[in-house]
């Protein structure tokens, strides 16, 4: 049984003229891009549009990809920039009363699922209160699970700056949770401060 081609192999095939192989790359990463866009504050109804733009941009600049870093890191970078651009261009207000409509899901769900969705919605609201340049490293590290050096590469910032922004972002998030969403505070040693 043939093994799955790596990202770099697929990219080489696309650049050699096998454009149809780009679809495999999209399938592999479309959820990651969509999730990252939502977590960066793009309303759910606009996520497909942003993801479409991201992959089109990726296709057009595929020659510039440097395989020394993971493809996903490059993809995150383009996604974060696209999400921030979208937010800036649309001047999305991050007030909490606008977020629920943006995150409204269709279809009925069981009670536990509804509770989880409600928690997710409140967390999105809380994150939306943090300024973009602080939220980006917070989301990339604590939601997307990237390491500091990867966050630094994605945001094109020195590691020291990323660390200090993370420190401030967590402090802001803690304050927001304390003030507006105390029920969300996790019962951890760190949460004792809240």
């Amino acid at each position: 049984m043939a093994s799955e081609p790596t990202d770099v192999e697929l990219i080489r095939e696309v650049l050699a003229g096998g454009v149809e192989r780009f679809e495999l790359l999209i399938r592999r990463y479309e959820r990651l891009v969509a999730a990252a866009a939502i977590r960066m504050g793009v309303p759910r109804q606009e996520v497909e549009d942003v993801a479409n733009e991201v992959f089109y941009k990726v296709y057009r600049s595929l020659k510039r990809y440097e395989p020394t870093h993971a493809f996903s890191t490059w993809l995150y970078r383009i996604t974060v920039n696209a999400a921030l651009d979208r937010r800036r261009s649309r001047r999305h207000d991050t007030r909490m009363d606008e977020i629920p409509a943006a995150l409204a899901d269709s279809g009925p769900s069981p009670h536990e699922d509804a509770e989880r969705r409600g928690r997710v919605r409140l967390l999105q609201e809380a994150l939306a209160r943090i300024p973009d340049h602080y939220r980006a490293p917070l989301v990339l590290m604590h939601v997307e699970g990237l390491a500091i050096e990867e966050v630094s590469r994605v945001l094109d910032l020195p590691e020291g700056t990323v660390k200090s922004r993370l420190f401030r972002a967590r402090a802001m998030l803690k304050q927001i949770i304390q003030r507006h969403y105390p029920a969300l505070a996790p019962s951890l040693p760190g949460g004792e401060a809240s």
Partner: protein
Amino acid sequence: MSDRLPLLPRHGDDPGEAWAEALLEPLRLEEIACDIAPSVMARVAAERVAVRPLPAILARPRLLWAACVPAGIASLAFLTIICLGLGRAAAGGAAPGGALAALLPRLIRLVGERLAAAAGFVVTIAAPLLRAAWALVDTLAPLLRGAGLVAAATGLLSIVISLYVFGHYRGTAPQAGAASGILPHGGTPR
């Protein structure tokens, strides 16, 4: 309670990585459905149809520019050959050729004088105007380049047409000289 966020948090304000990880865990677990591959691939395919590579000759402007030089030289050579041919074909050829040779130094002197006068005019009066004109030319450079190409193409076309006319009607052209019955001054031999 103030709604302002702590942009410069104090030491101890950071709840720590474990706290953030635990708080944001539901976001990590959230499944996002997304199916954009068909639309992206359609966009990519549409772009590939719309942006076909230019024909090789249009994609190499330098080659075209280089081709203009031999085309110009060929035009000049052809003009010289035609002039010489006309000079030889003209009745006897010697008289007009001699007259032309006598006229040439005067012509060169006259052109030189005019050029010197024009240069003086340019240096003293027209320099600012020329600078402005140069800026205009610089702006219109793409248009001028296009015009240059058209001129070169027209020159080549004229060569082809001239060759055709010259070759086609050469056999039927009236012969000059005594054998043809036509003298250089237009009279007929007795």
